[in-house]
């Protein structure tokens, strides 16, 4: 079955340290993947998508076909990055289980 896996439910990082949120996918071909984010007391919203190759709020995500991964990265974490992050495949109407990122001041 086509699905994504987010192996970390919780991730704590110190402010200013690099952040990497892992997402692995289990299907072949050229998947299109998204990252969604939910900040405290806000609705779920799109952060970035692979097809756009964009950097949003300092975050980037590169599709690594060899490792079947789409990890979300940011070189220097900020306190406002604390949120719940979901990886989602474009072709399927599903989401990963999410990673709660906490930035330690």
């Amino acid at each position, binding site marked *: 079955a086509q699905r994504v896996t*987010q192996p970390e*439910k919780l991730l704590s990082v110190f402010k200013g340290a690099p952040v990497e949120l892992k997402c692995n996918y289990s299907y072949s071909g050229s998947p*299109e993947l*998204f990252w*969604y984010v939910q900040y405290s007391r806000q*609705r*779920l*919203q*799109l952060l970035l*998508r692979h*097809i756009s190759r964009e950097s949003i709020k300092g975050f980037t995500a590169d599709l690594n076909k060899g490792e079947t991964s789409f990890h979300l990265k940011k070189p220097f974490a900020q306190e406002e990055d604390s949120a719940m992050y*979901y990886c989602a495949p*474009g*072709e*399927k*109407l*599903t*989401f*990963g*289980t*999410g990673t709660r990122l906490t930035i330690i001041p």
Partner: protein
Amino acid sequence: NAGVTQTPKFRILKIGQSMTLQCAQDMNHNYMYWYRQDPGMGLKLIYYSVGAGITDKGEVPNGYNVSRSTTEDFPLRLELAAPSQTSVYFCASSLLHRAINEKLFFGSGTQLSVL
């Protein structure tokens, strides 16, 4: 524009009661979705609709019903509430089908407890 509006924000039900979660969007999106999010879990698709009059089951449809009489509204009905339906419910919409890599717009969610 309001985007996707969900009501109510919170609700407590007794076992066996019924209720309807309302969802409306003002973006003229054809595609609408209902998800549930259990504590510590990801979002699971309950039902979706590709246009007025057309609905289809998602991953976890049992215990729920939907209708889509207009483009704007996509209510979710719980007929006989059970404790297993305690969850946060999210409605979403998209201009094009999610399955072709389209961005979803989400409502703020409804927190439902069944006691």
